[in-house]
């Protein structure tokens, strides 16, 4: 069966420090991978998605970046965190299904607090 792992679960970082959140998927090949951010009391904002190794699509310009060094590994990074980067970060994967339906399976999330 497929599983998704996301870590760390909780992170407290000072402004200006770097960030690295990691996500790995097991039990499937060539998944679509996603990073979403959820601010307090708000919906999910799509940050990045990837349909293959080295292929990254950015949805929102900001000081975050994403990389996919391996088929089932997706990393979210920042060189210098801002206060506004605080939030709940969710990794997800999918495989396009029948009629192009794209059902996402989410990780447990990483809560980032920037102080």
């Amino acid at each position, binding site marked *: 069966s497929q599983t998704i792992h*996301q870590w760390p679960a909780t992170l407290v970082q000072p402004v200006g420090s770097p960030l690295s959140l990691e996500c790995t998927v097991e039990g499937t090949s060539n998944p*679509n991978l*996603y990073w*979403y951010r959820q601010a307090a*009391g*708000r*919906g*999910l904002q*799509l940050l990045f*998605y990837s*349909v293959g190794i080295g292929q990254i*699509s950015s*949805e929102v310009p900001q000081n975050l970046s994403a990389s996919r060094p391996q088929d089932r590994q997706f990393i979210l990074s920042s060189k210098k965190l801002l206060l506004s980067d605080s939030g*709940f970060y*969710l990794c*997800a994967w999918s495989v*396009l299904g029948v*009629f*192009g*339906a*794209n*059902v*996402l*399976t*989410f*990780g*447990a*999330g990483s*809560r980032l607090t920037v102080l």
Partner: protein
Amino acid sequence: SQQGEEDPQALSIQEGENATMNCSYKTSINNLQWYRQNSGRGLVHLILIRSNEREKHSGRLRVTLDTSKKSSSLLITASRAADTASYFCATGPRQSGGSNYKLTFGKGTLLTVNP
């Protein structure tokens, strides 16, 4: 920008009652999905309805879709305290070839079911 908008933002009911949540969206879609999120956790997929379907059932869940009004509703019948969670609609855009990689989420409805 958010594609889906859920209504109401919050809903509080008693156990055994039915809960209805609505979602409106703006552009043509391939499918619409509903997800559930327990506090501080990742999202879990509940049900998907394709653009050529009008109604779909899964257990105590009933989803309707009106593409002419660009709206959907999620009905949870005979609610339980364990149904307490946030519920999000998500839309997959209609792309050429029928495939879509981006899923856009609304801000969600917080459902509280009181025992």
